[in-house]
């Protein structure tokens, strides 16, 4: 016998066209863009408590809060404003900078930082849409970065060709690395969440071993690879004053390609079908196990390419920790982007901004860098739970006075 897990109302929700059309207030307040903006705002507000608490002056004034509260609130405001204005200056536009280049450089830094996140996020999004929870972008980024580095430091080729070969190597190696998890899932049913997590750790040890060998260190004594050849680096888009490189354009193209793959291609149809209902996909003649492998290959290839852009675009040399937190941030990026290519790009830009802005937040406002992680996690949690956002939102509370119904909202 089969088990039915949920008691489902005997009919589908009422068709929107029928009868009571939701009024404008309801429509606006339930819109997902509003939820997203509110979620980001709320996460920033929640984090500002931590920012204030970490500030030494706020701590000092808190001791005599009741004696002279103005000190405390003034100091808190200064701390929070200082932190967020530095974030803005570091990530979007530096109004305090002296040269024009310096002023607009932050936004290009945001774009640069978002490139690997876009790639890895797209890879994960493909997996999520296909029902595979791939936690392994971290390892895939790293092995991809290593493959690109290997090509970049070992061979000498004409510019352009060298870059393309290095990227291809990264894609292939990243794909194969992820493919292990896909293959094991298809053949033995091994849970991909666990296998990919384990592969992340294995990748780190493997690369740190290779960094002590001729293969990646090429005779250096430090566990850092040599700098990749100029012929293998991404060309800069805005000249040497900026780090923004052509990888950004490739990332946007990749987002478009993933959109085409998922929405317009036969293969993508199969990916989505497997993601939405494996049984129905199998009954419709789709080779589900093959799809598992193909999805992981695609995801790994994209993540590997993300690793390549990190090395060939910005870092130029490889370390065991070169993947940083790209792979893990990419999970939240893909979730935030609701596994849609456009959403992923926008989410990656947001995370890129947090990343680009955090150094200045530290140096200029003395804000602990760990705040950024808290902000990221809070944003994703809130965005995943629109009802929570609506419950917490003042706008929605006020709107209930005018007949807005939170329950009527669709999640």
């Amino acid at each position: 016998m089969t088990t039915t897990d949920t008691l489902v109302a005997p009919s589908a929700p009422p068709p929107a066209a029928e009868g009571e059309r939701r009024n404008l207030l309801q429509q606006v307040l339930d819109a997902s863009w509003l939820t997203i903006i509110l979620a980001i705002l709320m996460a920033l507000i929640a984090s500002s408590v931590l920012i204030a608490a970490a500030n030494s002056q706020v701590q000092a004034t808190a001791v005599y809060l009741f004696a002279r509260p103005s000190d405390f609130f003034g100091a808190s405001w200064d701390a929070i404003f200082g932190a967020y204005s530095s974030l803005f200056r570091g990530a979007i536009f530096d109004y305090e900078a002296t040269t024009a280049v310096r002023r607009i450089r932050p936004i290009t830094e945001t774009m640069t930082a978002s490139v690997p996140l876009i790639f890895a996020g797209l890879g994960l999004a493909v997996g999520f849409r296909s029902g595979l929870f791939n936690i392994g972008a971290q390892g895939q980024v790293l092995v991809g970065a290593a493959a690109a580095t290997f090509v970049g430091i070992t061979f000498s080729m004409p510019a352009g060709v060298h870059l393309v070969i290095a990227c291809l190597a990264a894609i292939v190696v990243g794909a194969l690395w992820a493919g292990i998890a896909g293959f094991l899932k298809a053949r033995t049913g091994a849970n991909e969440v666990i296998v990919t997590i384990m592969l992340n750790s294995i990748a780190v040890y493997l690369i740190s071993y290779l960094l002590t060998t001729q293969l990646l260190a090429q005779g250096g004594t430090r566990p850092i690879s040599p700098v990749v050849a100029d012929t293998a680096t991404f060309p800069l888009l805005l000249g040497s004053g900026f780090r923004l490189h052509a990888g950004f354009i490739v990332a946007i193209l990749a987002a478009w390609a993933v959109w085409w793959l998922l929405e317009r291609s036969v293969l993508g149809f199969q990916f989505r079908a497997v993601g939405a209902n494996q049984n129905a996909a199998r009954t419709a003649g789709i080779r589900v196990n093959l799809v598992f492998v193909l999805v992981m290959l695609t995801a790994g290839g994209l993540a590997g390419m993300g690793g390549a852009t990190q090395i060939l675009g910005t870092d130029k040399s490889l370390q065991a920790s070169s993947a940083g937190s790209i792979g893990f941030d990419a999970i939240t990026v893909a979730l935030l982007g609701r596994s849609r290519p456009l959403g992923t790009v926008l989410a990656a830009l947001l995370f890129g901004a947090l990343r680009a802005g955090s150094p200045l937040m530290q140096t200029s406002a003395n804000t602990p860098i760990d705040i950024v992680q808290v902000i990221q996690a809070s944003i994703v949690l809130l965005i995943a739970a629109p009802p929570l956002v609506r419950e917490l939102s003042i706008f929605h509370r006020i709107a209930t006075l005018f007949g807005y119904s939170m329950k009527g909202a669709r999640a």
Partner: protein
Amino acid sequence: MSTVTAPQPPSGSLQTPDAATIQARIGLRGPITYIGVGLISLVFFALLTPADDTTRFMVASSRDYVEISPFAVPSQATAMVLSLGALALAVWATVLTFQRRRVATWIPILFGGLVLLAFLVWVMAGNSNALPLTILLTGALTLSIPLIFGSLAGLLCERSGIINIAIEGQLLAGAFLAVVVASLTGNPYAGLIAAPIAGAIVGAGLVLFAVRYRIDQIIVGVVLNVLVIGVTNYLFSTVLTQNPQALNSPPRLPTLPIPVLSQIPILGPVLFNHSFVVYLMYIVVAVLQVMLFRSRWGLRVRAVGEHPKAADTVGIKVNLTRVRNTILGGAVAGLGGAALVSAGLAFTKELTSGKGFIALAAMILGRWSPKGALAAALLFGFADSLRQVLNNLGSPVPSQFLSMLPYLATIFAVAGLVGRVRPPAAEGIPYVK
């Protein structure tokens, strides 16, 4: 009304003699694996070992009650005997498989043990240091304690239908609070009491989002891990580093050797010479094993995880059960965090370093049962302990590869030994009335 004979005679009469003898295909994966591994063991661990090497073992450390001096064995001969024994078992298992008889559980366990011993003999062959067996085993137990608590936490949640990916965060939160409370009070047991509270809070967050807002439980878990890492890092660098003496120097949980039992040779020091948290683990595993499968509470929890609607129709409050279990699970994971720092270690950033995920693997490998989780966690603990011992004594394998050992073991376990397992049927699906 009469029955007209069907166009074909009923299938029974057409049955060819061999049709009845057609049976399910014999699974060849088992025999091939056994014999393959056995042969590898024979060739690499025995035949390729220099004949005059010896391997030294140490079965007691200087602190033990009974002193046994280290002894040496000829490497090749010993590995040979062990490998041949393993091969014999492999053949036996193959014969059983072909005769369609069940391969008893002790066979793979003994097989694995023999191959492992052969490996140890090989890897330590010619090494002037003795392999400290008791230390290896004690290390395995110590290293597996947080994993055991973690996987118990996982199965408490999953048996009620909530996927708990946030074990890592719960361990970390538990460790953090344990350190702070133990340091502030100067009492290690106070830390042990506080840690479950921190874990429970993370569990409450998980279940809040999973039950009330029905968000994908894997997503919540992943994000909660990030959040806990962020918050503990923040608190560490802003609060703990300001005053490490008061906030980050927890006292050690004292070692309480159990009288008599701890004096048994080999087993005594390995099992009965630990701090309270280890004995607590024994108790929690035993109690959970009994409670989960024999008690009213356990029956209801499992019903909720397997078929929530059926549970609901007999008056069991499905979501309340899930909330309770997830919070309880979080608390158990918090204990694991406390165990991690029970030796009186200071808190450092991300000190759980992925143990929560290995605990998750142990839970799956242990098939969602407390004793299975115990066995699986011990296996991972052993892999980790082995890595340390070999690292310390010097081995021909680079340290990075030894470091991969626990992770590789996990993949092999999940892919090879477990394959398609049957999780609680309603796992991960929000219950909507």
